[in-house]
């Protein structure tokens, strides 16, 4: 009996020591419940949130489930965050529908909810801080046109045809080409689920069918790496490849010249803007319905630029 009591006592003590910054009732406290935690992308979002937390003197916590399938775990995290009577909540929904009862609860308590990374299908969040994927993909189209000289055939290897990011990036690219570059023909859009191997096979099939292809746009990290692999397996060297996001393989491909360049989102900015908007909303200030957290185009010339290097991850 004594043993167990000691153990639990010790454990509680450890817990207390670890929680150096318990948010008190008066303090401004903003929990962020994200889609993930251990991936480099989410750690970069957390770094941005920490930066805002220091700058504005607000307490934050950043949590997310171990992987993006654990919808119920994320709901439990949101429930625990609500229990702390926070000033505002940042939330990146894995599944909008599952979270709605809790979001409604937040609304009833008068706690502003800020959606980040991807939107929530509901009118409860006061704003959404995320990358403008349409604008980012348009920039990719501009860069593609510039590199291939304004005319010729190109293809798109996308990651999926249903998710918000998949649709926005594909359409952003296609519409820009259609509107601005009449001499460029997009011969095909193929979907590789962001899987390296699948995207590699797709790329090889596209190249076989279109030997005169001038460029390929890969819409996320996995797609872009697949394109690079496919192109090098086919022994092509004069193709313009534009990628998306970062990661070690993609950065290496850009440094070696295999890839012309890529769009990177600004995960640090997503975290920073979320905390900033949460604070402003809780003070009753107007916040725009959508906050574009920004994006950059990077290539071998600016990959080591401090501003760019800060938002890239391995």
């Amino acid at each position, binding site marked *: 009996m004594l*043993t167990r009591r000691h153990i639990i006592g010790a454990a*509680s003590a450890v817990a207390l020591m670890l929680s150096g910054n318990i948010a008190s009732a008066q303090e401004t406290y903003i929990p962020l419940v994200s889609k993930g*935690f251990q991936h480099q992308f989410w750690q970069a979002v957390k770094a941005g949130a920490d930066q805002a937390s220091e700058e504005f003197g607000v307490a934050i916590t950043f949590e997310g489930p171990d992987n993006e399938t654990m919808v119920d775990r994320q709901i439990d995290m949101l429930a625990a965050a609500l229990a702390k009577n926070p000033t505002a909540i940042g939330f990146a929904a894995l599944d909008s529908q599952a979270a709605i009862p809790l979001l409604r609860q937040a609304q009833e308590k008068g706690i502003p909810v800020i959606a980040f990374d991807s939107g929530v299908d509901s009118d409860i969040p006061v704003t959404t801080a995320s990358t403008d994927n349409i604008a980012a993909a348009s920039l990719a189209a501009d860069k593609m046109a510039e590199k291939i000289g304004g005319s010729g055939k190109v293809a798109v290897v996308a990651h999926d045809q249903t998710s918000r990011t998949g649709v926005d990036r594909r359409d952003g690219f296609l519409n820009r080409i259609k509107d601005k570059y009449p001499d460029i023909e997009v011969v095909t859009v193929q979907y590789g689920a962001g899987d390296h191997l699948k995207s590699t096979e797709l790329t090889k099939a596209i190249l076989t069918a279109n030997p005169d292809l001038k460029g390929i746009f890969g819409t996320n990290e996995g797609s872009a790496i697949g394109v690079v692999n496919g192109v090098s397996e086919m022994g092509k060297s004069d193709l313009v490849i534009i990628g998306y996001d970062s990661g070690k393989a993609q950065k290496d491909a850009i440094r070696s010249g295999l890839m012309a360049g890529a769009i990177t989102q600004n995960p640090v900015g997503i975290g920073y803007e979320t905390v900033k908007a949460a604070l402003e909303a809780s003070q009753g200030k107007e916040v725009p319905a959508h906050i574009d957290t920004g994006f950059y185009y990077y290539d071998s010339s600016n990959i080591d630029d401090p501003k760019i290097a800060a938002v890239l991850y391995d």
Partner: protein
Amino acid sequence: MTVVNSSSTPSLFARLIDTGAHQKLLAFASLIMLLIGFSIASPNFMQTSNMIAILQATSVNGVLAVAATLVIITGGIDLSVGTLMTFCAVIAGVVLTNLGMPLPIGVLAAIGAGAFCGLCSGTFVAKMKIPPFIATLGMMLILKGLSLVISDTRPIYFNDTPGFDQISRGSLIGDIFPALPIPNGVLILFIVALAAAYILGRTVLGRYTFALGSNEEAVRLSGVNTDFWKMSVYSLAGAICGIAGILIASRLNSAQPALGLGYELEAIAAVVIGGTSLSGGRGTVLGTLIGALIMAVLTNGLRVLSVAQEWQTVVTGAIIILAVYADMVRKKKA
């Protein structure tokens, strides 16, 4: 129902709690102390809404842990409980949303699918003599894959089945006592636990469950069809996973086909914290229930205290080891 080989005849209550009642008392005392500790540490912890959040977080893991308890008492292990839960949720989604069948049929289909998959695992273990760890590891992967195949790797929503989300989210208790809006999911957990405790304590199946874990060879030599009973236990555990599948699908109002991996380990952790022996022959449902509650209180409490997520995991792991060690020390003394 007759009880095999019982020298003493304890009361129903004592039987439900198990002979080692004071061991459960210990686990219970730890739970209370965690609750008190967290309440002192944070004023936000002990609120009705947070207590309900904890109970709701326990419901799915609790039901899975009850299923795992049955199998573990036979000396086996079931690694497939998490993905079986998902598989059953997907089956419910197909039956209700894709085929448009009425609600009770969807629920029965999920439970039936669970029982069938449990029977498959049981057959692999009992008839084909594949070690439970391997047999259920195989099932775990098969079911994970099948869930993705059947659902076309997309979540299936239950918007066309009115009332489905109320199975877990609604509150019958809250309708009667508005001050206590305990979700139905929690109610179902307690009903499942009571039923499982009754089966373990009062039925032939229960007696053989313990007997298989204590000394399977002796049971077999005394002329009992051990294969049949073992397959029955795995089927029952599978059916309980089906109930967990309904609970999680209802809570999320969708069947999420990629979910489920990793849930088996949390269920096993709850079983072990609750004092059930991994070598079989000993264990209680009440202990498991307390174990699941301890896990949920710990996770929630550390979150409410704003402990960094990296450290939450470390503390949870340490608590599992300490709890089991304390239990072993106590048993040596006894």
